[in-house]
């Protein structure tokens, strides 16, 4: 790693979220994912949808990092066993506060476990990762399941987030974030993704652009 990159890394570590506001000019500054993570409603179902390499997992890790930083317990129902603890820890997730349930490709178990955890209460975030589940399988999950899950977290402080490839929970989700990748920036090495997030909330749709760096 070059000296400039080292310096940048050290400043980023020290200044945290203030780094971009301080050092990036208005022209180049873009919103980061934690700003979107801060707008996720509690006691409701949020759906994060997008194809592979659209930044949806980075957004999920930002949510986990923000919740665990507040000393809250989180649960991650990992349908396809794709959670990477190393990159989650690099994103600031306190792994000891995240209950990771590896379902090994069994969507039925994922839904049952999420039902149990949503009913148990006390979790700050319950995330269901169906990001690599084939669409034809995830589409088979009946709508009543999502209604039941939404009902379980209503009037609680739990964020229920579902990560999918395509929108599945449309009438049940309070907030829907559809992510799509615009382009991948390579500067010798893989540098960042430019992502567009379509945020649907209260029948209003808003488009915002984000950059997710390596």
């Amino acid at each position, binding site marked *: 790693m070059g000296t400039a990159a080292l310096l940048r890394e050290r400043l*980023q*570590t020290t200044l945290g979220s203030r780094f971009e506001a301080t050092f990036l000019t208005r022209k180049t500054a873009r919103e*980061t994912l934690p700003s979107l993570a801060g707008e996720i409603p509690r006691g409701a179902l949020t759906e994060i949808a997008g194809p*592979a*390499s659209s*930044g*949806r*997992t*980075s957004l*999920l*890790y*930002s949510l986990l990092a923000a919740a*665990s*930083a507040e*000393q*809250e*317990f989180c649960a991650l129902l990992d349908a396809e*066993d*794709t*959670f*990477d*603890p*190393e990159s*989650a*820890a*690099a*994103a*600031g*997730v*306190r*792994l*000891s*506060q*995240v*209950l*990771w*349930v*590896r*379902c*090994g490709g069994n969507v039925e*178990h994922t839904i*049952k*476990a999420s039902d*149990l*955890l949503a*009913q148990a*209460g*006390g*979790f*700050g975030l319950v995330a269901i990762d169906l*990001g690599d589940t084939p669409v034809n399988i995830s589409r088979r999950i009946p709508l009543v399941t999502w209604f039941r899950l939404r009902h379980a977290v209503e009037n609680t402080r739990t964020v229920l987030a579902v990560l999918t490839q395509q929108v599945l929970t449309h009438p049940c989700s309070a907030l829907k974030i559809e992510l799509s*990748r615009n382009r*991948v920036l*390579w500067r010798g090495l*893989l540098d*960042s*993704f430019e992502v567009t997030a379509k945020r649907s909330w209260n029948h209003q749709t808003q488009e915002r652009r984000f950059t*997710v*760096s*390596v």
Partner: protein
Amino acid sequence: MFACLHAPGNLPLLVECAGYFSPLIEETSPDTTVFDIRGLRWIYGTLEQIVPEIQRRVGIPASLAIASNPDAAVHAARGIHGATILPQGQEAAILAPLPLYLLGGSSEFARTMDLWGIYTFGEFAGLPPLGVAARLGEEGVYMQQLARGAGNRQLRLCVDPQVFREEKELEDPVDLLEPLLFLLSQMINELCKRLYIYALSANEIRLRLGLERALSHTARLSLPAPMLDSKVLLKLLQLELNDRPPQAPVEKIRLELMPVKPRATQHGLFLPSSPEPEKLEITLARIRGLAGAANVGAAELMDTHRPGAFRMGPLTTAKGVILPLRPKLALRRFRPPCHAQVWRTDHGKPVRIFSSKGGGRVVACAGPWRTSGDWWTGEVWCHQEWDVEIQGMGVSRIYQDDLQGQWFIEGSYD
């Protein structure tokens, strides 16, 4: 007030006798025991009435002394035969004729006393305290206090190890889970009542079932927090037995709860909520039944460079750990890595990839990064990693296993 019983070679009898009068007992030495008799005057009356009661209970010739502090009682019992009562304030006068060797202390102290010609408690107690402090130091001052019968230490209580165990032998073997749980619920209720009396909770359940044909079935459930709710404990046992039922009819049940101090936590108004430990444990037991015990827990990173290395640990609050929130590109790791076919240029750069996850032309790539490790063990690994952007698929991390010569997709950046 404290009573001391002294009889050479009869400690178990003395302790048993002391246990009849008080739960606060100290086994001072192999021939002496001291116990607290503060409440006895409400039962027997004055000290003069208590003494014959204790002597009658002992049943053997033993020296008995009653004093306001344990040390004075011990010295009187060791030095004066029969029963002695040391009224408060008169300890020094009664102890004065006792020989000084009863006081104990270091060999240097004993030699000094011998040189000074001091042989009794009274002679030593009569020495000027400042002079004793200047010549014998802290030990001398303490010994002089004891010689005056003015000690004020607490009893070193002998604690009886508490065992919370219930055993039941069944006349007819039980082969169904429901009647077995009925019996277990009775036993758990009984054990929880006993724990409650001692102000204790349980942090582990140990179950041993004696089965037909001399088989046995054991289960050990460690609880994340001390609990005393019999319904929760029974539910946990039920889930465990549902998950791993005994292989033959049950003839004998042995259930033990391991006692610990109950947890004391104060919830703050502004603290984030967390799952109730009892409820969480039942939920986790149910999820373990679904997904497997090895697949539920909190991930822990391991001290290795091996890609994707982790182990599962318990869910805990990370106190004092402050990690900066750094939005970073995440990796979705394929477990196991997806086997791939890779076509490369003459310079070794990947140009086309095909796998069960999809494939296509490589638009951009960066690499290779060579990593290897664990060559000193049987699990050696040696990788050549590339980051590749595949048309219509996304950005993935691929690697060539140099030992096998095969390509794999490790995961996708997302």
